[in-house]
Every structure is written in C-alpha cells, then in structure tokens.
C-alpha cells in the first residue's frame, strides 16, 4: 500500500511518515503544491493525505486534478481549519474524509485503514487478528466461532485497537474516536475505562487472548499473540 503525505510542516510530515511507515505502508511525501502535483501526476497512490493550505497552491486543486485523471487513490484532507464550509467544499471536490489538526496519529491511521478497506474489499472485509474475526459490514466479532456480542462502542473500540495493533494509544485518542467532539468539554476520561474493562471481560469470558494491556499513565495497547 502506497501513501502520499502532502504537508508543508516538516516535523508534522515526519511524524505522519514515521507512524505510517511502522504500520507497513510505503510512504512518500511532498512539501508543497508543485512537488505534490508532480508526484500525483507521475505515480499512483492508494491513499493521498493532503493539507489544504500549501505553499504555491491549494490542496483542493490537487484533489481536483486527482479526480480529473480518475485516480483510484483515496483522499483524506488534513486541515487546520475546523470549519464546516471547508469540510463540505473538500468533500464536494471528491475527498473521502476530512481530519482537523491537531489530530491523533492512531485516528489518522484508523481512518486510512477504513478508507482502504472500503476501496479495496467492497463487502468481503473480514479482519483476522489474534483469535478474533471481525466483520466490519455486519459489525460482528467471532471468537472461536462464537459471537462476542459487543455493543456499538465496544465494537468501535476493538476496531480502533486492531487498526493500531501493537501501538500505545492514548486515552485522549480513544475518547475522541468514540465520542467525537463532545468529549472536548469533559475533564476526565475515566468513562473510557468501563468500556475497556467490559470489552476485555467479554474476550476473557470466551477464553480469548487478553490482548488489551494498560500502559502506565498514557493509555492502552492491543498486542498480537
């Protein structure tokens, strides 16, 4: 899987590249409009992450170009502007998703995975991890051929963990993933603990591998057997 990161801020570009590289992607990057349009016109990518405000041009024009050439690449806009208008404009240009800075890398990763899944597997999308089989279409999880009976939140949580397996995920990233902007106003993330506890219990009860580990102070980690 090949991903192009178009972002003018060098350190941000490096961080994204590092995280995605460790996920096993082939990651390329472009720091401005000209380099980005050159790369997108020469190479094919599975996914393009594009910042709207770029030196020498707008990210929106790159999306336009990609769509014009019938590129198969999924497009995720990375924007510093959390405005509905920009979001709508970006999606109208043909972007598949929109993420606002600052974002959590596990969140970006999960979105890329979901996008690639949608693009590549149309329907047949079982994810096998450890002893679990996750079907994102029916939103069901099988453990030793038995249904795990997860709630919506628990399912989303598991999917988020699986997308970022073997990575430390912070409480903040989990909270935002599961509750969205609504948790911005909350002081503590204690409520996450209950959901994680319940998910672990369901897996352990069915004699599954206890993959969710607590990482001191930071959050959690889903490890692979």
């Amino acid at each position, binding site marked *: 899987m090949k991903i192009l990161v178009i972002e003018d801020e060098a*350190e*941000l570009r490096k*961080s994204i590249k590092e995280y995605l590289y460790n996920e096993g992607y082939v990651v390329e990057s472009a720091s401005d409009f000209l380099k980005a349009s050159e790369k997108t016109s020469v190479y094919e990518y599975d996914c393009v992450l594009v910042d709207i405000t770029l030196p020498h041009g707008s990210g929106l024009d790159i999306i336009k170009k990609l769509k014009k050439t019938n590129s198969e690449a999924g497009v995720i806009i990375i924007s*510093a502007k959390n405005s509905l208008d920009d979001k709508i404009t970006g999606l109208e240009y043909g972007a598949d998703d929109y993420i606002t800075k*600052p974002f959590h*890398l596990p969140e970006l990763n999960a979105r890329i995975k979901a996008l690639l899944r949608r693009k590549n597997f149309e329907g047949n999308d079982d994810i096998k991890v450890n002893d679990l089989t996750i079907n994102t279409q029916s939103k069901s999880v099988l453990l030793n051929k038995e249904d795990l009976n997860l709630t919506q939140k628990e399912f989303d949580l598991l999917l988020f963990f699986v997308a970022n397996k073997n990575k430390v995920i912070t409480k903040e990233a989990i909270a935002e993933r599961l509750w969205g902007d609504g948790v911005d106003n*909350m002081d503590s993330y204690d*409520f996450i603990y209950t959901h994680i506890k319940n998910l672990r219990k369901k897996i352990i009860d069915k004699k599954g591998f206890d993959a969710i580990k607590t990482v*001191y102070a930071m959050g959690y980690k889903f490890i692979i057997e």
Partner: protein
Amino acid sequence: MKLISKTILYFLTVSIPVLMLAALISYFTIKRTVNENLNEVIWNKKRKAEAQIDLFKRPQNFCLSFDSMATIAIDTTNGKGYKYSYLFKTDSDGENVLYWELKSYYKSRGTNYLIKITEPKFETDDLIENLLEMFLITFVFLVLGFFMINWIVSKTLFKPFYKTLKQVEEYDISSNTLDLGKTSTKEFKQLNEVILKMTNKVHADFAAQKEFTENASHEIQTPLAVIINKLENLIQTEGLNEQHFAAIQAVYESAIRLSKLNNSLLLLTKIDNSQYIQKELVDLKSVIEKYLGVYEDIIKEKGIKLIATLNETVKISMNPFLAETLISNLLSNSIKHNIQNGEIKITLTLKELNITNTGSFNTLDTSALFKRFKKGNPSSESLGLGLSIIKKIAGSNNMVIDYKIEENRHIISLQF
C-alpha cells in the same frame, strides 16, 4: 416618526400661527377700513346737514331721511362739539342691529342745532366668522396641497433615498452586496458614495479580521499538532519506564488542553465577528437527543439519573453549528459539575430550555460565572470557557440566560 410626518408637523406648527396672525391682521385692517369708511360717510352727511342748516330761514327741526336715521333738531342745552356712540335698534325682523351714531352740535344764526346721524354698523361677529371660514378653507387646501407635494416628493424625489435605506438595512457584511442605484440628486449621490465607501471599508476590515483569527488559529494548531504527534510516536519506543510515561503524559495533556483552549477562543472570536450568521430552523429536541447519546456512557458511569421532558416541536432559527455547541456545552456542564449518583432534569418547552442538576459545589458567585476563565472549582481541569461560550451563543441569538442555585441544585434556563 416618518420624514413625511415630520415635515407635515413642522409645516403645521409654522403655518397655523402664521395663518392665525394673518387672520388677526386682516381682521383689524378690515375693521379699521370699514370704520373709516363709515365715519367718512357719517361725516359727509354731517357736512351736508350743516349746509342744510345754513339754508334754514328760521330755526326748525328737520328730517334728512325718511327712516329718521339722520335728523336735525334745535338744541336748547347749548351743547358743543360732537360725540360718537353705539346704539342698538330692533329691525323689522325683530333682531337687534348695531348702529353707529354721531351727535354733533352746530350753531347757525344764533340757534344751536343737534345733528344726529345714524348708520348701521358692520358687525364684528360676522366679520370674524367670515374671516375664520375663509382662513379655514385656505388652510385645508394648503394641507391638502402639502400632502400631495410630499407624496410626489417621496415617490419621486426621495425614491433613491428610500432605496438606499432599504439596501443598507439588508446589508450583509460577509457578502458585501449593495445595489444603491443611480440618482441625479447631489445629496443622495454623496450619501450613496459615503455609504459605499463605509461598507467597503467595514467589509475589508471584517475579512481581514476573519483571516487574522483563522490564520492565528492555524499557526497555533500546527505546532500543537507537531507536539502531539511527536509524542504519539515517542510513546511507541521500546523501553520507556513509568517516569518517562508520566512526563510525556503531562506534556501531551497540556498540548491537547492548549489546542482546545485555542479552539474555544477562536469560537468566541468568530461569534463576536458574526461569522455564524447563516441560520436554519434547528430542531432543538433532536440536537439534545444527539448529545444525550454522546454523553450516555458518561452519565451512566457517574450513576446520574436523567429526566428529560422534551417538547416535540421546538424549532429555533439559529446557526446549526452554534446550536450544537450550545447544547453540548450545557449538557457537558451539567454532567461535569454533577455528583456521583446525582440527577439531571432537562425540560424543553416552546418558551424555554431548563436544565437542573445536582451540583458539586453549592456556593457560587453566579454573576462572575459567565466571565472567561472563571471556574467554579479552581482546581478543576476545565478551561472555564464553557459558560462564556454558552452566554455568547445565547446572546447572539437573543436568548435570555439565567443561572441560579437552589437547594443544592444548579438551574440554568434559556428563554427563547
């Protein structure tokens, strides 16, 4: 008061005294002229009578007219000079008529005569009545004429002015569209030019300010994104111990708080700059239900009992994003400042939204609470911007907000 009503009012306040003064002057002038005429007539008759007396061969009484309005009589009182006096006489219709009488003495050939000349006097009452009638008619015509002129003026002459007024009234700062039309009147041309200059300046300032706040926010969010993402990569490193994690978590949390703070301040500025003026009919019930869904777990986690009485059709014209921000802030406040196993009561009616919740603190300076960065609990992690955002949104949508504490319950109400 309308311009037309005002000009008419001014016209009336000036024209009524002027007309009254004119009537008064006319009255006295006419009266004087008539009296002078009358006196002249009488005086002529007197002179004629004196000429008659001079023709008398012997002293005698004499009637100068058939109706004995002018008489000459021999006087024995030896009177001198002349005297005018009023006199009432009953005429054939039985009406009292005023007369003006001259009594004049005249000596001729040793005999003293009294000449009496009586003439009907022009009645003052009639004069006033006639004058009043005349002036009233004039006045009515003047007012009618004035209304007509005004009507024509406002339909034609003032048309560009009213057009400008309407355009300015409907002026939208973000789109800056103003069609003032053409006019040949110098003053209106000038007015339109000034307004156009002003609105262009206002629009340019508005756009610059909007750009500045957004750029500032962009500039702050980018380094924060770098901090957050660098740390998210850093924590993947093997061999970090608890001390490392604690330090990283502190930096990480602070960066996230800073980012949220930045977002909240940007939101407040944007509301101040009226950047959320696009309104829609928002169904408040569904917005509340949406956020109750978002906070469901947190409410359950805290063991809070939720009582929601939501009226079916409460539709409010406001910006949908602001509506969501308002509701999410109100609800999260009622959860955040609640106690374990507490209670939240939400009542939505056509007139108001009332949220009552059990609270973690019972004494609070409610007047200072809406100020920025004022926290109910100083040690809390919250930004202290929630209530000022609520207040700002409520204020920009003409809602009345009220906050009080009664019997350990925090009651916040919004009147639409």
